[in-house]
């Protein structure tokens, strides 16, 4: 599948934003962070900015961006519509919680809004993942690991970003936070490695004979394509650049998005001022996430290519 950069930036940037909102919401549902109201507002605003940039960039790949509002209508059947609706809805609890923190009203309503915000943030990222995971036409995406990987990327990149910003205030992560982050990064590595292993066996169904309505096992070669030049179908679905370099790129993606952040977390625990090390972890994870998302598209084969053997 042809990787669309607008979609890659959308899923990584807004993923990080929803990850931040998830942790912020969870924290305020549990107990308020010891922050000035100004700094808390900055954190919320940054998360919403990341989300908004991502959402705007996703509009760029539309043929008719001015009609994008129509995409909110078919939530009963379409994951894309659900994603849009959840994305719009998430602003309400985020802004509401921001207002309550500003007013210093951190009692039950703020806790309830925090829990709601964490839930909607996870639901939005899940809807994004399900757009891809629900497509039977792209076997590499129709896989149970796609949803947890999207969630882990969002929660881990948003969490690392939040840790970096909090460390500027002199906040030190508790050991439990480090354990959770490390467990998440290790789970991400394991899921991606097992996903790439599974790609090997995913490739070959259905066979070309089934695509052409011939007897099973018939051996078919194309001797003439329907078109002399490339078409929308071969451009969009027949992208092949990444498979050639897949091994190196996969290794790079996992080193950047999991192993380097893990190392940075271990080092940061021993430092008095860990902001710099944590910031480099965020940068590595961001680059890793973009690369992983690019591979996610570029490595996936669409079944329509059975017609172009």
């Amino acid at each position, binding site marked *: 599948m042809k990787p669309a950069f607008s979609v890659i930036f959308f899923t990584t940037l807004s993923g990080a934003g929803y990850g931040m909102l998830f942790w912020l919401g969870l924290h305020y549902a549990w107990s308020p962070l010891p922050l000035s109201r100004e700094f808390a507002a900055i954190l919320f605003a940054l998360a919403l900015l990341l989300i908004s940039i991502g959402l705007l960039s996703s509009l760029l790949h539309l043929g008719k961006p001015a009609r994008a509002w129509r995409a909110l209508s078919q939530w009963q059947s379409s994951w894309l519509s659900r994603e849009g609706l959840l994305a719009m809805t998430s602003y309400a609890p985020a802004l509401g919680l921001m207002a309550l923190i500003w007013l210093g009203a951190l009692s039950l309503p703020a806790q309830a809004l925090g829990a709601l915000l964490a839930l909607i943030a996870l639901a939005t990222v899940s809807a994004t993942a399900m757009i891809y995971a629900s497509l039977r*036409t792209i076997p590499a995406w129709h896989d149970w690991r796609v949803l947890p990987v999207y969630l882990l990327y969002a929660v881990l990149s948003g969490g690392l970003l939040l840790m970096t910003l909090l460390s500027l205030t002199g906040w030190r992560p508790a050991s439990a936070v480090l354990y959770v982050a490390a467990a998440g990064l290790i789970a991400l590595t394991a899921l991606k490695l097992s996903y790439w292993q599974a790609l090997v066996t995913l490739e070959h169904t259905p066979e070309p004979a089934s695509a052409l309505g011939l007897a099973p096992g018939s051996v078919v070669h194309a001797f003439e394509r329907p078109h002399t030049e490339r078409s929308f179908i071969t451009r969009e679905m027949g992208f092949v650049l990444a498979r050639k370099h897949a091994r190196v790129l996969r290794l790079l993606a996992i080193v950047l998005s999991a192993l380097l952040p893990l190392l940075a977390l271990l080092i940061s625990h021993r430092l008095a001022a860990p902001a710099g090390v944590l910031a480099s972890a965020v940068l590595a994870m961001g680059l890793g996430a973009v690369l992983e998302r690019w591979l996610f598209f570029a490595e996936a084969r669409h079944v329509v290519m059975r017609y172009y053997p």
Partner: protein
Amino acid sequence: MTALPRQPGKRQLGLVIDLDTCVGCHACAVACKQWNSTGSGGPLSDIDPYGKAPDGVWLNRVHSYEVAADSARGQPATTLHFPRSCLHCAEPACVTVCPTGASYKRAEDGIVLVDESKCIGCKLCSWACPYGAREYDEVAGVIKKCTLCVDRIYNEQLDETERVPACVQACPTRARHFGDLGDPDSAVSRLVAERSGRDLMPELGYRPTNKYLPPRPRRAAGSAPPAAETLDPQALPPLLRWLDRVLSR
């Protein structure tokens, strides 16, 4: 609504394509392009049509394949011409993934259509289609697809014999048949039963309406090498026997 019709209508209009008689002439593809470029659907745009890399939207594409000889089934190598277009599936994921409601399946005749005034051009439907039936129009910014010539088949301005899809009318070998596949007694349904018409990629579960008739098995003689020439002069009439003797000198 992108929700599928709750009670799929009995009528399921569609095509039956005979892979035995299709000769790969592309007349169906050209007729489709002509009708849909000039009809109510607006132009199917072309980019650089007379230049070095022409590119454009086609709703019907004809592939040509070589099917290798199959000794187990006693079949020689053959050519296979394969027209590919929208199959108007009973469970079209292209419709259910549509976020805007632009894509829909009609309850009354099963035709899958795009309302171009609602389409936002997100291309997700083209990803959801296993048959490559939906193409994005770079100029219009929306998705185009086969309409089963909905502007012909119900068009009372046209002569009754012309109320069929343009591809069906254009086919010089009558390899394309149009009719109601929801009615088991229709001519197209009987043809499908007679010739064991097939669904494409049935394992994906889209339940296509259009059916493809597989090529008829070649007769065994077709694959045997031609017999060596023999001439028995004794079996010839006298005049030819004399000629044979003269020419054999």
